[in-house]
């Protein structure tokens, strides 16, 4: 099986760290983001001949076009990482409907659309591995993150159902659930305060989540699993 991996959300944060790790391991990568320039810059930084594509994962047409382009220029995609996510924190009573829709569309619908688009090739190729980036918030909830939590929790149900659907076709589907990780998404949090409740006493780094994602992509007997990478936080929230 060739080693071509598509990383949605690969230009920044966790997705970018995954790209760095996988480039080192010899995978050929498609870095996909809404902003083509940023995606190209990220692909360029990796050295080698990795490609960049622009795509809004919430738009089915965009996603289909992107997969067609990837197949044309890179070959069959057997590894997929869904790391494109947004959050719009707000207490539910103050949440705008458009923010509900955008979080659900990007975080949940987007991952479902990319998985669907990747499925035909993976079935034909008789193999594939998918990791969807969830969150411990999707498992435990958090005040001010009810919609984010729904969008990330939904990924778990989706991934497990898909895992059962395609397991016999040698395709594995897993979820990584990070806790608090140093990225643009968490830069405004009160880290000094939050650190105190985490058993490992610190936030995580994107490279640590990336290692967990690569592990799930490659470990041969794991599917339908939610791997928590959170310094022990899930035990105390």
């Amino acid at each position: 099986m060739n080693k071509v991996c598509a990383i949605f959300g690969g230009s920044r944060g966790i997705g970018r760290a995954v790209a760095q790790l996988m480039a080192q391991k010899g995978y050929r990568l498609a870095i996909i983001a809404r902003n083509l320039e940023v995606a190209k810059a990220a692909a360029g930084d990796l050295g080698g001949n990795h490609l960049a594509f622009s795509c809004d994962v919430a738009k089915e047409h965009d996603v289909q076009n992107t997969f067609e382009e990837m197949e044309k220029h890179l070959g069959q995609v057997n590894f997929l990482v869904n790391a494109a996510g947004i959050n719009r924190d707000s207490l539910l009573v103050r949440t705008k409907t458009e923010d509900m829709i955008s979080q659900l569309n990007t975080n949940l619908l987007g991952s479902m659309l990319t998985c669907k688009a990747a499925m035909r090739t993976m079935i034909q190729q008789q193999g594939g591995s998918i990791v969807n980036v969830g969150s411990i918030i999707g498992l435990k909830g958090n005040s001010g993150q009810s919609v984010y939590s729904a969008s990330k929790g939904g990924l778990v149900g989706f991934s497990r159902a898909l895992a059962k659907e395609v397991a016999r076709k040698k395709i594995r589907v897993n979820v990584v659930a990070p806790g608090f990780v140093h990225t643009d998404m968490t830069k405004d949090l009160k880290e000094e305060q939050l650190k105190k409740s985490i058993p490992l006493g610190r936030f995580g780094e994107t490279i640590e989540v990336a290692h967990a994602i690569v592990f799930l992509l490659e470990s041969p007997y794991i599917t339908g699993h939610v791997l928590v990478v959170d310094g022990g936080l899930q035990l105390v929230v």
Partner: protein
Amino acid sequence: MASQLRLRSALALVTGAGSGIGRAVSARLAREGATVAACDVDGTAAQETVRLLDGSRSEEGAPGGNHAAFQADVSEARATRRLLEKVQASFSRPPSVVVSCAGITRDEFLLHMSEDDWDQVIDVNLKGIFLVTQAAAQALVSSGCHGSIINISSIVGKVGNIGQINYAASKAGVIGLTQTAARELGRHGIRCNSVLPGFIATPMTEKMPQKVKDKVIGMIPMGHWGNPEDVADVVAFLASEDSGYITGASVEVTGGLFM
């Protein structure tokens, strides 16, 4: 994934190393550069594991110090204390990777299970892991060393299994134990995680009636049993710094069974 040397300079203590998952774990950790202290209640089996490790090493020219075999019944407090003392004396340091694979079954339906069968399984599978985890943690904390403690539980600990009420209870206990250890030892830089294998081809599962084995395959999404190397792959990840932000986790390696 071969050709990774993530555990160069690590000393790993593996219990239950004489067969099955414990032996595969020992081999994988050694291949990634660890020095392995292989322990089993069957001293001869532990020695055989070390022989296999030494054999592979000389074939591949791989690095790593001298692996050693130890005999101990982990359900006995004194034996476990002595085990850690001997390991520390042999290698001049405590093990920074501790993998508890030692486990037994004494299957019987609830309505007929003897007190002895209950006690033996709890003693080896749960008390044994408590004793090893405690002794290893004491050694690591007093020498200020970081570490990774990996306890082999089972998917049966999550969902139960007909005929295995003692085994299921012991393995569920391992999860609670490991989570608590993770919370207490996080401040000392010691990570603690459980691994929950499904049906893996080892001497323990060989004993299962063929009819049951055939039925089980139909329930596994991936359609086949796992092999011990699949579990060792998970243990190697948890032992290494690649999993440096993972603690208190329960990692299932089941081919999707009972997800």
